[in-house]
Structures are given as C-alpha cells and as structure tokens.
C-alpha cells in the first residue's frame, strides 16, 4: 500500500504540474509590481508563532488593502517536502519564513523561487550574505536567522566527574574530559549527536567541527568537495575515536539525551536554551579544534532558516514590502527577544546591546554569529549531503571502512554531483 501511495503522491504532483502550465515573463513582470493581499507561512514552534502573529498584526493594522493571511507551515515529514509539493502544485504562499538553505537549489531548479534585491540583503547581512548567493549570482533567499551551534555542557555531570573547570578547546582535551565522564559513570555518554542516517545530521556533528578546523570552509567550494582534506579527515578521525571508545553512542535515541542526563554534552544552537530552562544547569563553549583555536577565531555551522519568495505569488510588490518590514531592525529585535535566535544582520551584538546585557546567556551566540558557515548553495545539495552522510555513517559511526578512504570515495562522487545541473 505504501508503494502505491508513494507512486500516487508522485504522480498527482506531476499531473498537477502538467495541468497548471501557463504564464510567463510578462506575468512575472506584472506580478513584481502588483500590490494586494498575500499569504505567508511561518514555522510552527511556539516562540516563532508568537513573533509571526505580532508581525502580521502590526502590518495589517497599517495596510488594510494589502492584508497578510498567515499560517503555520503545514505538517509533513519535513517542511522542505511540504514546500516542494506546494511549488509543484502552484499553491505555495508568497513568503515562507522557514526556507532551508539546503533546499534552495532544488526549489530554484523547480522554478519555484523569485530572485530578490541583492542590495537590501547585502546591506542587512553584510559579508555573511555571500554564502547565500546562488551560482547564477542572484539571491533566491533572504538570510534571515541563524542558530550558531556550540558545545553545551552539563555542569552537574562535569562536577560529578571531578571536572570543575571544563577544558574542551582541543580534541585531546575534549577526549580526556569525555573519558573522565564516562569512566566515572557521571553520564553514560560524553555526547550524543544523532547517529542516524538522515542527510542533515552531519550539520550537528561533522560540519561544525569542520567549519572550525578549516577556518570557515564550506563542504563544497569552487565546484569541488573539500571534506576529504587533511582537516576533514582530522575531524572525522576525532569523531571516530568518540564512537570507537564508546564516548558517543551508535544508537538512535528517542528523547533528548542532554536533558535526560544520558549525555554530558550536546551540539546545539541557542534555540535550545528555552528547552533547558529549569532542567539543566548548562555552560557553553565553542566547538573544539585540533590545535585549540581561541574562541574569537572559531567558526561553526549556522543552522540558518531563511525567507524566500515563491513564484506562485501574484502580489510580489506587497510581498517584497512585507519581507523588508519583517526583517527590519525593529522586527528583528522583536524576533530575537521572542525566540533567542540570531537575526542574520550585521553586528547583532552591538545593534541589540541592551538585549544581550539583560540576557548574557545569548551573548556568546551573538559573537559566534559573525563566524558561521552555511551549507553550500550548489545543485544537488541534498544528494551531496546524503552521499557524505552515507560515507560518514559507514566509516566514522560504525567503523566498517577506513575513514580516509571513505571520505575520498565520497568526495569523488560529490565532485560529479556538483557538475550536474
């Protein structure tokens, strides 16, 4: 039945695409200037919903003839699949405040996205915006917010293991602390990144450390895979040791291992702080590097979600105005206050100095936000991440192949994938 259902879904989406053909460049030009009501989708976590509702109310109060109808993104296996299906069906909203950068190349290939004004994006985000440019030199996503991932540690577990001043800057220090925690049985595992095979899991184990080790390199640069370098192999070998010495688990965990106290550390972004409130007495440090780079030089994965405008939008003039309104200094401040996530704009720490003075827990993340690395914006992005994950899973997590040869093999495949359009 599942096969039939899958085929049906695939075919219905295809037939909808066939039925809905029409339109062209003329329509696009007219739509770009058109104003009127629009629809938007935002994420479904409580904090973002609260922010979204006030943003929409604020806009609607001033624009009776250009009202926003907003809703949470419909549930599906992932937002990306829901968005992909909506593009194909031609019923995507004007703006989605939850667009994964990894999916942008695919949505672009589908003809689902509208290029945005580069000058506004670069003015708002500064140099970090460059990572979000598509290969054709245009922006199909507005870099909106990031969750720079760092190492959270449980102070009580560390103290139980006899570590009062955690040193986690180098791989050796990290491994030594991990061994002490596990040997003392203060926690069953030192750290518990998801060991499963989904393409995006590498964003929370390999990739942050790779970004740190390389001083900010993306997984693919200049049309070539970068992860089979000496730095990439060092990172992979570090994680291999964590798994081989049973400091990290190979098994899927259904709860939150950090909150449960099963693991002493976690690799997460500031969104998790609200989750830990009252449950974990935590501290935070940047991800480790082999040589122990100072915190001010450590890069990490951004875990960003962006805003994109979808080609099904008829009133793109209004959509663009809403996009600018929702990402203005004022609204970004409200977003930061409501969610603790970092707006991807220049000098977040100084622009919202008052907020960080009142919420010092978030200050480190604001500093880190200027040194974040995004997923590469290349064709076949998700296939590339899955190819990498398969090799990583086989060699690093399960030790069934030499780490170096697994990364070399995956790099060759990724080089081919980058060349395909």
């Amino acid at each position: 039945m599942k096969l039939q259902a899958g085929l049906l879904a695939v075919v219905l989406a295809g037939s909808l695409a066939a039925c809905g053909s029409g339109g062209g460049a003329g329509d696009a030009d007219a739509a770009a200037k058109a104003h009127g009501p629009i629809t938007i989708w935002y994420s479904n976590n409580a904090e973002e919903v609260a922010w979204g509702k006030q943003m929409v109310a604020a806009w609607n109060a001033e624009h009776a003839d250009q009202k926003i109808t907003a809703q949470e993104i419909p549930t599906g296996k992932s937002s990306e699949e829901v968005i992909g299906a909506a593009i194909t069906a031609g019923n995507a909203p004007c703006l989605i405040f939850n667009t994964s950068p990894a999916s942008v190349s695919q949505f672009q290939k589908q003809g689902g996205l509208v290029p945005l004004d580069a000058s506004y994006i670069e003015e708002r985000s500064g140099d970090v915006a460059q990572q979000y440019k598509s290969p054709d030199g245009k922006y199909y996503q507005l870099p909106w917010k990031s969750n720079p991932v760092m190492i959270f540690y449980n102070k009580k577990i560390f103290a139980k293991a006899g570590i009062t001043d955690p040193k986690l800057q180098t791989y050796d220090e990290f491994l030594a602390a991990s061994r002490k925690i596990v040997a003392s049985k203060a926690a069953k595992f030192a750290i518990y990144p998801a060991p499963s095979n989904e393409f995006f899991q590498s964003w929370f184990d390999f990739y942050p450390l790779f970004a740190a080790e390389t001083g900010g390199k993306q997984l693919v640069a200049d049309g070539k895979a970068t992860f089979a370098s000496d730095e990439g192999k060092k990172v992979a070998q570090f994680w291999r040791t964590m798994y081989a010495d049973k400091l990290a688990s190979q098994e899927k965990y259904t709860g939150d291992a950090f909150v449960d106290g099963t693991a002493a550390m976690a690799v997460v972004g500031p969104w998790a702080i609200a989750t830990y409130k009252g449950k974990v007495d935590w501290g935070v440090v940047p991800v480790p590097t082999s040589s122990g780079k100072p915190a001010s030089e450590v890069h990490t994965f951004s875990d960003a979600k962006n805003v994109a405008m979808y080609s099904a939008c008829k009133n793109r003039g209004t959509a663009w105005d809403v996009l600018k309104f929702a990402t203005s200094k004022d609204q970004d401040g409200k977003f930061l206050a409501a969610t603790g996530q970092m707006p991807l704009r220049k000098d977040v720490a100084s622009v919202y100095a008052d907020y960080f003075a009142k919420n010092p827990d978030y200050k480190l993340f604001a500093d880190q936000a200027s040194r974040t690395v995004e997923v590469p914006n290349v064709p076949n992005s998700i296939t590339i991440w899955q190819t990498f994950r398969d090799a990583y899973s086989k060699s690093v997590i399960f030790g069934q192949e030499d780490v170096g040869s697994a990364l070399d093999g995956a790099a060759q495949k990724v080089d081919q994938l980058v060349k395909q359009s």
Partner: protein
Amino acid sequence: MRRGLIGRILGAHPVGTAFVTPYVIFLAAVFAYPLGFAVYMSFHDYFFAAPGAVVERPFVGFANYVTVLSDPAVRRAFGNVLIFLVINVPLTVVLSLGLANALNAAIRWRTFFRVSYYVPYVTASVAVVGVWLFLFNSNGLVNSVLGPLAPDPSWLVNSGLAMPTVAIYVTWKQLGFFILLYLAALQNVSKDLYEAASMDGAGRWQSFLNVTVPGVRPATTLVVLVATVTGANLFTEPYLLTGGGGPDGASASPVLIMYQRGIEQGHPDVGAAIGVLLVIGVLLLALVERRFVGREES
C-alpha cells in the same frame, strides 16, 4: 444485434457489472494511471516544476534504470527486503495460523486475546515503535535478560541483526490482521472433518496438520501474498527504528531509498525507476508463491 453487443459488454449479469464499474474506475484512476505515469517518468529526465516553469524532460531510455542498478545502496536495499521477506512471511503464516487456531478453541478470555493481538496492527507505528526501542536498544529489556549473551553491537545497530529485528517487529505488529483472516477461514472448516479424524484416532496435532492446514489453504495463499506485498513496501519501520536505514544501509528498504531519491533529493525519475523494479520484483515473487501454494491447493 445492438442489444447483443451491449449484452456482451455488460456480461450475463449487467447489474453486477454496474456495481463493479465504480471500483474499476477507482482502480484505473488511483492505481493504473499512476503506475503508467511512474513508468513514463522512469524513462525521462523528470523532475517536478512549478506551473508555468519552462523545463525540459527529455527521453533518456534506460538511463535511470542504469543509475538505479549501479547504485550499491539500491542493490543492498533489494537484498535487505529479501532477507525481510524470508523471515517475515513464513513467520507470519506459522504464528498467525497457530494463534488463530488457539483463539478459535473454546478458551477463557478469548475475546481479550483476540483484541490484544489486533491492537498493535491498528496502532500507528510511530506510537508502538517506542515500545520496541525500549525492548531492543542496548540497555533494553531483551539485552538485560540475555546478559552476557546480548549481541554487540546491539540489535538495531548491528549490520547482521538490524533487518531480522525489523522483520520480527513487523511480524508482531501485523499479526492481528492475519490472525483475523485465519479466524474467518477456520469458521469454514467443517466440524465433520474433525469428528471423522477423531474417529480415525487422530490426535490434536494430526487433526491440525491433516484437517486445519488443508482446510485453510486458500487463506494461506492470501496471507502469503498480502504479507509479501506489504513487506516489499516496507518503509515506516526502518525509518523509525533505525533512523533512516542504518547501520550503514543494513536496514534500508527499496521504498525508503525511493523516498530519499524521489522526494528528498528531487529525483522522482530515479525514484520511479526503483518503484517499477519493485513492482516487477513483487509480481514475479507473487507468481512464484501463487504457483507454489496454488499447486498444493489443486
């Protein structure tokens, strides 16, 4: 002459034909057309596009099939599902027939047991998978009981044991449905046959082998075919139990790979080729099974 033609089209029982027609239309719309379209996609460089987007989808012959067949992950997934079927189908037949036979007897709490076996089947996989993880993770109940005999790596992260564990889970989850099929079939086995067997001095086991098993053979054929078809479409369980087909693809199924390639990665043409190969594989397997079980029937 005209009446004769209509008569030939509608058959000897026009009312029956009228009743069947909506279902035929339903099948054509939701099964035959999608299947045909999937075959079309598998022979083209096909991807989903927004309405109005100008895209080319050229005919590529067997290129997608070459991609699929030269992909070790796909080959492994087909191998995995064969392992699954070899464990799941016989186990399903033996357990469901045995349990249905027991539940058919006049035992106390019969209704309670019938419902108990049926509950996992009607409960969403997402809800019951936690129970299974509690049983089979490295600190789970099963390993606690086994003690030093527990496998290392544990069940679901062990390349050799992951798929058999998934197969046993699915057998347990679906057992209730197959027990119901057998319970229905058991009502049709004549009591006279049991009495005759008893008169001939047959014990319970001999009655079961010589009366019950042949008596429910049509149901066995159905159970084997249905278990094969549903088993070949395995997706949810490896996705939930082993985090997307781990360890190292040891529990990946063709439908899981089809979902990854077709939906997640935006290559529905490759996904369709996997689907077509799976349909052909299941048809061949079903033909072999039908012939094998059917021959005994005749």
